[in-house]
């Protein structure tokens, strides 16, 4: 039963990623695209975790941890770059 649930949940997350990708391509503002990228990395993290459950392996969870850290840093840096124009302030 859990195999069917895993497949269905993977399909749901893939649809969520497709909707976010639509917002990434269309979204009128730059920050819409940044938000879409944020949602995309969170959903990719969930998909990696689900694949780790499906294949019963440990390696995928370290990849998920790396995705979580780098995605957060990417979102913060991009939001700061959009508002300020540079990332490291040279005062």
């Amino acid at each position, binding site marked *: 039963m859990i195999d069917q649930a895993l497949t269905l949940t993977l399909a749901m997350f893939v649809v*969520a990623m497709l909707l976010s990708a639509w917002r990434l391509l269309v979204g009128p503002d730059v920050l819409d695209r940044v938000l879409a990228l944020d949602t995309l990395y969170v959903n990719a993290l969930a998909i990696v975790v689900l694949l780790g459950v499906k294949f019963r392996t440990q390696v995928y969870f370290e990849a998920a941890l790396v995705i979580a850290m780098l995605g957060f840093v990417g979102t913060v840096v991009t939001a700061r770059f959009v508002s300020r124009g540079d990332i490291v302030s040279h005062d």
Partner: protein
Amino acid sequence: MHAEPLPFAVELVASLLLLAGGGFALVGASGLVRLRDLYMRLHAPTKASTLGVGGALLASMIVFGWTGQRLVVHELLITVFVFLTAPISAHLLVKSALEREPLRRPPPPGGGAAQPVSEPPPGPDDPAAPR
């Protein structure tokens, strides 16, 4: 793909958590597509995606914790990290949106213009306030 079959109750709980997580992710992404303002669109996926990842991570914790294949430290780390960082990144996105276009600041909920900030609401030491 299975090492050994899980008990029915464990499979049931894990499957329900998985489906709830997928449903939350779908709701968040559809809100990202359908809502009409940037501030509304910031609302939907930042909460729903966090819950979706939380459902998937809880299901994974249950499965791997039952089989005893390994410790569940990774899921705990990912959960703590995602639940800490998702509100911070949403807050930074709103801050940069308000810095870029201060005139696009939306009116407060409930309709009407923004309340004047010069008149504070009646405090407990206000004599006109009903006790």
